[in-house]
């Protein structure tokens, strides 16, 4: 086990290096002047001063030197302050957000975490439940219905599904609006009397004792959660079903049945725990995927998470901001994948022993 973790840990710096190189390579498509946004917020208008900026931040230097500067930043010649430097968490200046990219991420990320928090249970638990039912009633009605559902589910583009539920539940019925909060609620949240303990809106609302704000925030998250559940259920259903079918064919299940155990115990106590091993990985990666920001879902519902911020910046061709999000995303994914892999090895002895 220790061996496995060490081997897995050694991969992390390699991946981090790889992702930074990848993003740095994409930055090279920009002109030197555009890249200056990595280090400074105000760009002079005239040519001469622009050339000065390029000199100061070394934007015309060899690539390896630029890469190093991009990592650790550049000292400002006048003030001696460090400018830029992604290792210090400075991702540059966001033209479209009119604030540092890091700050933009800091305001948007809690919203994504909040959404993930509330989406995890319906996505994973219902998906697994569907899969187990389909396997237990193999080739029965539930199984066939699940099959059709998963075909339709995998064929439905997120944005089409999102627009359809908006049409039904917002435009027609007016139940669940898009966005983050109603106007009255955001006025309360932005007032000084509202304390931000965790920055997660639903939790903060509860801690402040404002049940109305909590419900309002939840109401705005219903449709994104529905969409995320819908597109993930199909995958969970498939994986759980096939793993469960495989397990039900094992001899120890036959033994359990032969001993005369009730069918319920055979399925839920003997078969299901062992069928969960591949599902756990899938669940892990789904949570990681949700945390990484779900670009399309957040955009369709105007939900102010990191996914929609990245999409908005990209559509306005604000590359420095978009790449900042990508970098952040890459870091999260690498760390979270590591955690999932280690948990997986912990659950499944076959992995850690091989």
């Amino acid at each position: 086990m220790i061996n496995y973790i060490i081997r897995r840990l050694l991969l992390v710096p390699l991946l981090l290096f790889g992702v930074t190189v990848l993003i740095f390579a994409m930055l090279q498509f920009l002109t030197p002047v555009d890249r200056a946004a990595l280090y400074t917020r105000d760009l002079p208008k005239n040519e001469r001063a622009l050339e000065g900026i390029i000199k100061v931040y070394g934007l015309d230097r060899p690539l390896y030197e630029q890469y190093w500067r991009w990592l650790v930043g550049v000292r400002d010649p006048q003030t001696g302050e460090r400018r830029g430097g992604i290792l210090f968490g400075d991702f540059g200046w966001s033209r479209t957000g009119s604030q540092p990219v890091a700050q933009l991420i800091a305001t948007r990320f809690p919203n994504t975490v909040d959404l993930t928090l509330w989406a995890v249970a319906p996505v994973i638990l219902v998906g697994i439940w569907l899969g187990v039912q389909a396997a237990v009633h193999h080739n029965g009605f539930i199984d066939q219905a699940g099959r059709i559902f998963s075909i339709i589910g995998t064929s439905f583009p997120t944005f089409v599904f999102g627009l359809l539920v908006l049409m039904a539940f917002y435009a027609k019925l007016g139940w669940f609006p898009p966005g983050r909060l109603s106007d009255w609620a955001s006025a309360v949240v932005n007032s000084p009397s509202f304390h931000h303990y965790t920055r997660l809106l639903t939790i903060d609302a509860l801690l402040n004792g404002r049940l109305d704000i909590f419900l309002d925030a939840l109401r705005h998250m219903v449709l994104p959660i529905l969409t995320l559940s819908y597109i993930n259920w199909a995958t969970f259903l498939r994986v759980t079903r096939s793993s469960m079918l495989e397990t039900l064919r094992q001899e120890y299940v036959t033994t359990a049945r032969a001993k005369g155990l009730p069918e319920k115990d055979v399925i839920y106590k003997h078969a299901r725990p062992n069928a969960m091993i591949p599902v756990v990985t899938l669940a892990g990666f789904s949570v990681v995927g949700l945390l990484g920001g779900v670009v399309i879902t957040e955009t369709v519902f105007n939900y102010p998470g990191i996914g929609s911020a990245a999409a908005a910046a990209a559509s306005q061709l604000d590359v420095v901001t978009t790449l900042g999000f990508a970098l952040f995303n890459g870091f999260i994914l690498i760390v979270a994948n590591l955690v999932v892999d280690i948990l997986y090895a912990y659950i499944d002895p076959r992995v850690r022993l091989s």
Partner: protein
Amino acid sequence: MPESNNMPADNALLVETQPLREIGRLERLIGPENYRLLKGLLRTPASILGFTLIGLFVLIAILAPVLAPPLNPNDPYKIPRDGFSAEPRPMFSEWRRNAPSLPAWWKYVFDTEQWVHILGTSQGQYDVYYGIIWGTRTAFKTGLIVVFSTFLIGVIIGSISAYYGGVVDNVIMRIVDVMLTLPFILAALIMAAVLTPRIGRSLLPSLIALITFGWMGYARIIRGDILSIKERDYVLAARVIGVKDSRILLRHILPNAIFPTLVLASLAIGDVVLSFAALSFLGIGTDIGYADWGQVLSFARNWITSLDRYWYIVIWPGLTLVLFVMGWNLVGDAFRDVLDPRMRGRI
């Protein structure tokens, strides 16, 4: 025809040895295993529905100039606009300005000389019907280009990796790992956004982006297949009689390893079109007014509050996209079923 058929029929022993079923020309050409796959693909109702859907879209793409005659034949992908007002207009509303020529079949079906917006207009008076019809061509074009390129790159890199092994293999596979770290749609989005200022708004930025981040899966699959086929006896036999390595790879290993990947790749057209539409929907890629489904759908983004009135700007392009992707998914599912090793030997 097998030669044994010409033998005297009264020889009971020879009759016994005759093949149980006739082996056709196609089966001889592509080999029994691939023939089984092909037959399995054309058997289930789901896959037949899938093939029908795909066939229907092929037909629409071919007949596009007949179904929706372009305003300017040199630039058929530009959706004609009936004026500039923002608000969508309902289905079958009359075409006031900029009407393209009437399709020949219209008179016979509806008995009128008036060309209308069959499926209404979207924001900015873009004709929805026209966008869907010509968008089908865009879909096939992008799908085929991306699938072909990613497949080619994947096969080349995967073969190099499996063939040389050792350090080369390790380095290539770590590069694949790194490129798979970022979520596909986010990576493609960034790549397209980076490229657009350089090469302008067109199909190209999205295409290049989808290709750049799309080949890794094929490289992994083909690498695995080659590694397992490398160990087969016939490869050893070829090596023993002194066949050159490159010839072994190209003539003996690759043809046997490539078929499943090839079919999987061609079935990925549905996914590629979906990703492409997603990028357009997010506002990256082609010029506004270019006939592609994601773009037509993205017009609906500004009308979320009144989608109950303007349902036709979501339903029709949405349904088109869903049916297209579903067609490929149904065929893909059937294919995965016949590829399942447990199904082997059953025809």
